[in-house]
């Protein structure tokens, strides 16, 4: 189960992040041209690929499996709780939903794109910062389960899919249900993180690996209950 979970969680995480990165690259490309924006984006992807090799190599070089499990569990827990908290806040209407079209408009009107070099830097930084979360998931989930290549492939498939659709539309991918995906990924990653974190501290899960999907379902049900209880009148979940 965890193998499929790794691929699905990585694909969805990467999809959300690449959509945000595409919005930035698109805004830059429409200002300074596709070739320069593309070069900046490719440079950032090359840095991320190098970081993936380095990160995976470093973590696997640590001799103690329990230590690796603790580090991976800790980072995934930090990541998962953050995404789940954000998704609950947005789902309940406490924070506005992330709007790709608005982000695109703001960026295209920004003075920083008026100069070619600074615009290329915006594209580079945008792809790098959005890609770092993908990098974290690929390395953490991949190393712990021994499926780094599969996780990296899932992230690349998401990249190709987002880029292909983005190129066809030539517009920000505003219709992607980003908050729903963030909610699901947050539950899954928090499930992985808390499962491995406690296991690394010597806790024996009573039902073994079956505890992992149970944790994910627990966070999903708990998260939905929180969205309901926090819902504001502007929220789609307000009753």
């Amino acid at each position, binding site marked *: 189960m965890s193998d499929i979970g790794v691929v699905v969680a990585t694909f969805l995480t990467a999809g959300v992040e690449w959509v945000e990165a595409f919005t930035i690259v698109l805004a830059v490309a429409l200002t300074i041209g596709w070739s320069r924006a593309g070069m900046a984006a490719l440079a950032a992807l090359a840095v991320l690929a190098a970081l993936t090799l380095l990160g995976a190599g470093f973590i696997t070089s640590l001799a103690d499996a329990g230590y690796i499990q603790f580090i991976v569990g*800790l*980072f995934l*827990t*930090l*990541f998962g*709780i*953050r995404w*789940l*908290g*954000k998704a*609950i*806040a947005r789902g*309940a209407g*406490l924070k506005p939903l992330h709007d790709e079209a608005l982000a695109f408009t703001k960026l295209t009107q920004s003075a920083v794109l008026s100069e070619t070099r600074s615009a290329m830097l915006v594209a580079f930084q945008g792809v790098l*910062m959005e890609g*770092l*979360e993908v990098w*974290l998931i690929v390395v953490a989930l991949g190393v712990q389960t021994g499926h780094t290549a599969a996780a990296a492939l899932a992230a690349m498939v998401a990249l190709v899919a987002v880029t292909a659709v983005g190129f066809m539309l030539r517009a920000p991918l505003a219709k992607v249900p980003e908050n729903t995906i963030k909610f699901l990924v*947050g539950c899954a990653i*928090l499930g992985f993180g*808390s499962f491995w*974190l*406690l296991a690394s*501290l*010597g*806790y024996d*899960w*009573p039902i073994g690996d079956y*505890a992992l999907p149970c*944790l994910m379902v*627990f*966070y999903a049900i*708990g*998260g939905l209950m*929180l969205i309901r209880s*926090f819902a504001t009148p502007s929220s789609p979940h307000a009753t």
Partner: protein
Amino acid sequence: MKGLIKTLIGDGRTVACVAVALAIALVLLETSARPAAGIVMPLVLLAGAAYLARH
């Protein structure tokens, strides 16, 4: 650098929520209430997510 750290581990509140959950789990694992760690820690983390959503 600040952006990088925030991207990888989140802000102070996120770290505090996970630290509290971890501390409670560590205490439980050292006591006779050890079996409860698998229930208490997820509950504390969910409470942490609720706190982060509210703040």
